[in-house]
């Protein structure tokens, strides 16, 4: 066999492209030719050398925080230290390192089971998966913790949540490496991140340098050619350029961005475009005003009002610990007094004592525009039954509406027809004064919704003569409402 043909077969073997016939020819060649076997081993050794070189190169870069190489997640690696000098000092260091490695592998060997050997510290968790397809055998799913390592997402959208609250949405194809709690390396692909204030300093490494969060929401697109785009949507980030760029550190504020091409040594200022990046979960918390019912909270008693963030409804009062019940949180809670706004000793005609609060959604139009947003409310109820015959039923309701807040009264009264979405949770309260019971309700928010209404309600027993049951006291505390938008893929192409 001529040398050229042998090289073709060797290349084909190592790149896994031989046809069935070519493979048979290759096997026959290896069986019959000592020279072919010799060449096989030489080239196998050289492949191993390139592999070792590439992987050690990655390790060195990681130490220098100048990422470039990527690798698959590795369960264990036994590597030989690279000798760069033959001096006595470095020789001692080499052997000391070798000894340390032997100790490490002995410790590893003593592990009780194969599975436990592979247990490593989780860095973040998959919190959303929309069609994520990963390279390799492991297909992470929602709820699965991920440890440090390199991952290749071939397609789909996934969200990773780090221990300190940072959320990163990645859209495939993407190759990224989870380095530790505070660092993520993106070799290629698009990422959208939200870093809460408590995780300030979270860093995304790219071939163009490090992007350090200064409390913000931003997107990064890294192409295989090395070009990196950084778009800042809120807050600001600091870009620390790779040394090869010989550029100064630069802060990038919300609404702006940078297009960096390390090969061309060019950096261009751009206007950030949110639609070009996947977006992680966005949550707006505590949309209600005075949900803790601390002393001084305004409690309207003139029925449902169209004033956002203010409670309004029937006669209720904020109170400190009373009737053997302590506030669930803080020093105050709300007590339902009457099913209307009349004086306490007046006869009553209805049974439901109810308070409402409206939340104007218009400031959040951008969030709800795609129709994926959800509003979630919860409330904690308690009851002091001192032998009375009072109802044990309480209700938490949420509904979304389109229209003017001034019309909330009529909209609410006809909510079965007018509400765009509606949900309620009915609780039967126990007689334990020390236990608060949680009710929760959740509705999707259509893009055309203008406001939501949250209602808390307790049934008060009324005698046939209109006399209120004064032996039963109903309380509510810690009422909250949050708006959540799940991760979304980009809707515009990359630049």
């Amino acid at each position: 066999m001529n040398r050229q043909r042998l090289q073709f077969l060797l290349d084909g073997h190592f790149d896994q492209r031989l046809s069935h016939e070519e493979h048979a020819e290759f096997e026959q060649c290896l069986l019959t030719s000592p020279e072919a076997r010799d060449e096989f081993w030489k080239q196998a050794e050289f492949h191993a050398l390139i592999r070792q070189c590439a992987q050690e190169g990655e390790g060195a870069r990681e130490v220098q925080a100048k990422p470039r190489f990527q690798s698959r997640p590795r369960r264990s690696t036994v590597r030989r230290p690279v000798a760069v000098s033959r001096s006595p000092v470095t020789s001692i260091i080499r052997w000391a390192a070798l000894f340390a490695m032997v100790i490490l592998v002995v410790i590893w060997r003593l592990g009780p089971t194969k599975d436990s050997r592979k247990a490593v510290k989780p860095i973040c968790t998959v919190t959303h998966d929309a069609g994520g397809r990963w390279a390799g055998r492991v297909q992470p799913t929602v709820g699965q913790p991920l440890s440090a390592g390199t991952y290749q997402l071939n397609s789909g959208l996934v969200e990773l949540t780090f221990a300190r609250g940072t959320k990163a949405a990645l859209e495939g194809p993407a190759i990224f490496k989870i380095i530790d709690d505070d660092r993520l390396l993106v070799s290629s692909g698009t990422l959208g991140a939200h870093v809460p204030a408590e995780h300030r300093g979270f860093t995304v490494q790219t071939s163009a340098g490090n992007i350090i969060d200064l409390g913000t929401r931003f997107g990064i697109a890294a192409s295989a050619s090395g070009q990196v785009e950084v778009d800042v949507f809120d807050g600001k980030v600091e870009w620390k350029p790779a040394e090869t760029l010989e550029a100064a550190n630069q802060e990038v504020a919300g609404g702006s961005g940078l297009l960096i091409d390390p090969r061309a040594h060019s950096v261009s200022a751009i206007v950030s475009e949110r639609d070009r990046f996947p977006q992680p979960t966005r949550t707006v918390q505590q949309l209600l005003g005075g949900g803790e019912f601390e002393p001084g909270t305004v409690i309207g008693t003139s029925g449902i009002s169209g004033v956002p963030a203010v409670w309004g409804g029937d006669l209720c009062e904020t109170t400190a610990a009373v009737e053997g019940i302590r506030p669930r949180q803080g020093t105050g809670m709300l007590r339902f007094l009457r099913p209307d706004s009349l004086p306490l000793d007046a006869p009553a005609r209805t049974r439901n004592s109810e308070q409402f609060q409206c939340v104007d959604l218009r400031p959040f139009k951008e969030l709800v525009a795609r129709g994926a947003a959800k509003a979630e409310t919860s409330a904690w109820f308690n009851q002091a039954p001192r032998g009375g015959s009072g109802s044990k039923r309480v209700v938490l309701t949420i509904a979304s509406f389109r229209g003017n807040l001034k019309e909330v009264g009529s909209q609410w009264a006809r909510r079965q027809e007018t509400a765009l979405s509606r949900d309620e949770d009915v609780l039967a309260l126990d007689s334990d004064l020390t236990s608060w019971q949680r009710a929760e309700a959740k509705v999707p928010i259509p893009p055309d919704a203008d406001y939501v209404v949250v209602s808390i309600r307790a049934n008060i027993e009324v005698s046939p003569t209109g006399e209120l049951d004064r032996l039963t006291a109903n309380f509510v505390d810690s009422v909250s409402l949050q708006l959540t938008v799940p991760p979304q893929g980009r809707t515009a192409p990359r630049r």
Partner: protein
Amino acid sequence: MDVNPKPASPESDQVALVQRLFIQHSPSLRGFVLACWRISLAVDDVMQEAFLVATRKANDFQPGSNFAAWITTIAKLEARTFARSEQRKTKVFSNEVLDVLCDSRPEPLHDRDLSLRHLKECLGRLAPQARQAVELRYQTGQKPAEIARHMRWTAEAVYVALSRARLLLRQCVEQKLAEEPT
């Protein structure tokens, strides 16, 4: 490099010797496993098992004998065991070819450290695209078809680029080794 140092008589010393030799040989041994089985994602498992078996059988190894041949036999058996447990096709060679290959496996390169150092320099001489293809192939273990998608090349272009890159790298390393003072 001295691959078979002086004998160590106590049992623990023998285990330490085998483990040290395993570490020295592991890059080359990985290369052997990857050259003969399609188990790139499971090569660490095979290496771990080979390490455990080698440690258990440390006293069977005769200091001064050919460690490469000894550990190759162990790795071959472990890789075969793994391959048998796999549903998909991981076996590349027939047992006959595998045995002939293992019997002819030479000692690993004695100047491996030096070769590695030269290779790092030689990689820097590759054209950026060729270098990227090499990195994707050898660091992330991507197949040429995946590299082609990643780089928006044809698969054929990737095969050619990898083949040329390997040839250039080999020639570069050999030239540098030849220039080394003896």
